């Protein structure tokens, strides 16, 4: 029987709980703000015998991901966690993990990158990893962070996926504020995640294999990359199936993209992560005033749910994409490109504008969201035309 416990704690501790319930075998990890309390909690689980895993205190994130790759190739379930500069330090290994098709699960506490030094939320770190071949999930709340973490193991280890997954939550906003969430009982969570069955384990002495082969000098590197591309493209349907199975158990239905008021929205904001709540709050107030406001939250960013986004936005008169990171020198932020590109094949043009907001934890106040909806109203009515990327609320 499924029993759930309602708990009030931080997003990070909910993530640590999901990691404990998933029964990982090896956890090579290095602490970094704002992910540290995940590491501390897992270390406590290991020290107190609440988790039967090899906890490896490594000397850097470069080592953390290297050890994760080695352990995963050996054929066990591996999980790690990082943030910001730590994720940046893992950069070369991220590609190796996905290229070797190793189903590592990693939690990232989304945080700004230096300089100037800053420890607060934005998506510069995670967006820097968007082309690494990892699947990327975003959480708005602690509940979503917990649920996303549990499903990540199933997605990564699915035999038709076999790719690493990053499950993320916004630094401090979601990782450190105390939130209410329901957790599954251990037995249910473990039964859902299941046992990991590696296909080519280095430690399977009866079926010896080599990992990390060379595929250059005219070798099949290109073919391996296509194989990887097909796997991540094909993972979208598998993710939906796994989410549906999880939703049936947990009673918390969710999807790769989630719309609020999108059925008839004239003005819509596309957003990822914790800010979705602020945007919904404003949209709800505007609806009460008769403005058809909608919110489209992207929960799975890689693979990018292009069709779902196109479908949700096709009827809007004006769309704003909120980017919590920038691509300096480009037309706008990374989410903007992908949303705008998804809309290109529509028969009619939906005006799309881009706001970069909240860098380095800069406050996202409701009046800023109101301003965005007001701009969209002006575009929808024809009072103004679409404009270039704007730093929202920056002095």
């Amino acid at each position: 029987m499924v029993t759930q416990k309602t708990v009030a704690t931080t997003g990070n501790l909910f993530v640590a709980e999901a990691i404990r319930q998933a029964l990982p075998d090896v956890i090579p990890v290095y602490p970094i703000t704002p992910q540290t309390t995940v590491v501390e909690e897992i270390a406590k689980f290991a020290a107190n015998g609440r988790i039967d895993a090899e906890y490896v205190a490594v000397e850097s994130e470069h080592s953390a991901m290297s050890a994760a790759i080695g352990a995963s190739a050996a054929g066990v379930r591996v999980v790690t966690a990082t943030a910001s500069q730590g994720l940046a330090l893992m950069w070369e290994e991220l590609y190796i993990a996905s290229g070797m098709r190793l189903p590592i699960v990693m939690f990232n506490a989304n945080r700004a990158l230096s300089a100037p030094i800053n420890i607060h939320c934005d998506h510069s770190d995670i967006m820097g990893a968007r082309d690494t071949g990892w699947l990327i999930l975003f959480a708005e709340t602690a509940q979503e962070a917990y649920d996303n973490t549990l499903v990540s193991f199933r997605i990564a280890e699915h035999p038709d996926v076999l790719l690493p997954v990053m499950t993320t939550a916004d630094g401090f906003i979601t990782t450190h504020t105390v939130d209410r969430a329901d957790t599954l009982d251990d037995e249910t969570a473990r039964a859902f995640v299941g046992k990991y069955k590696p296909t080519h384990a280095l430690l399977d002495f009866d079926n010896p294999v080599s990992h990390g082969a060379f595929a250059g000098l005219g070798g099949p590197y290109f073919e391996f990359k296509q194989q990887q591309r097909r796997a991540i493209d094909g993972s979208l349907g598998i993710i939906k199936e796994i989410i549906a199975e999880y939703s049936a158990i947990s009673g918390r239905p969710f999807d790769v993209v989630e719309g609020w008021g999108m059925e008839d929205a004239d003005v819509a904001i596309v957003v990822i992560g914790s800010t979705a709540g602020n945007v919904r709050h404003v949209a709800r107030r505007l609806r009460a005033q008769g403005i058809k406001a909608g919110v489209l939250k992207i929960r799975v960013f890689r693979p990018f749910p292009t069709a779902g986004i196109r479908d949700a936005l096709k009827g809007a008169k004006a769309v704003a994409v909120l980017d919590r990171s920038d691509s300096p020198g480009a037309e706008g932020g990374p989410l903007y490109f992908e949303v705008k590109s998804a809309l290109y094949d529509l028969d009619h043009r939906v005006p799309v504008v881009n706001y970069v907001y909240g860098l380095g934890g800069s406050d996202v106040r409701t009046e800023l969201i109101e301003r965005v909806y007001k701009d969209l109203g002006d575009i929808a009515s024809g009072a103004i035309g679409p404009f270039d990327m704007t730093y929202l609320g920056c002095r």
Partner: protein
Amino acid sequence: MKWDISRVNVWGAEEFPHGAVIPEAGNSVYYKVSGWRSQRPCRDEEACTQCLLCWAYCPDSSVVVKNGEVVGFDYDHCKGCGICAVECPVNRKFGRSAIEMVSGGSDLPEPGLGDANGTPAGAAAAISEVG
């Protein structure tokens, strides 16, 4: 080799094992790397004390030992790194070490080539013994 890779050059992306895994052990023996070599080791059988340091140090298991004695080199897999020649100790009786790197690269040496290049006498014989 159990794993049939005879058509590897025309395989489509889905025919390769995931993640460039090689699902069979020990098959690198079929991969000949003599073309990587710019120099090859030559051994003077007279000066060789059979200390086996070359065998111990060779990173590619390309020093061939039979009945506890070095008999030559596996030139299909020797990449010409020269570690054996560096580690080979000087034989005080001869005033030189037994292994020397000589030009010649990837091709197996012709009989007498070693002598023409001023290599230690007997090297060609040792090489031909291994074939």
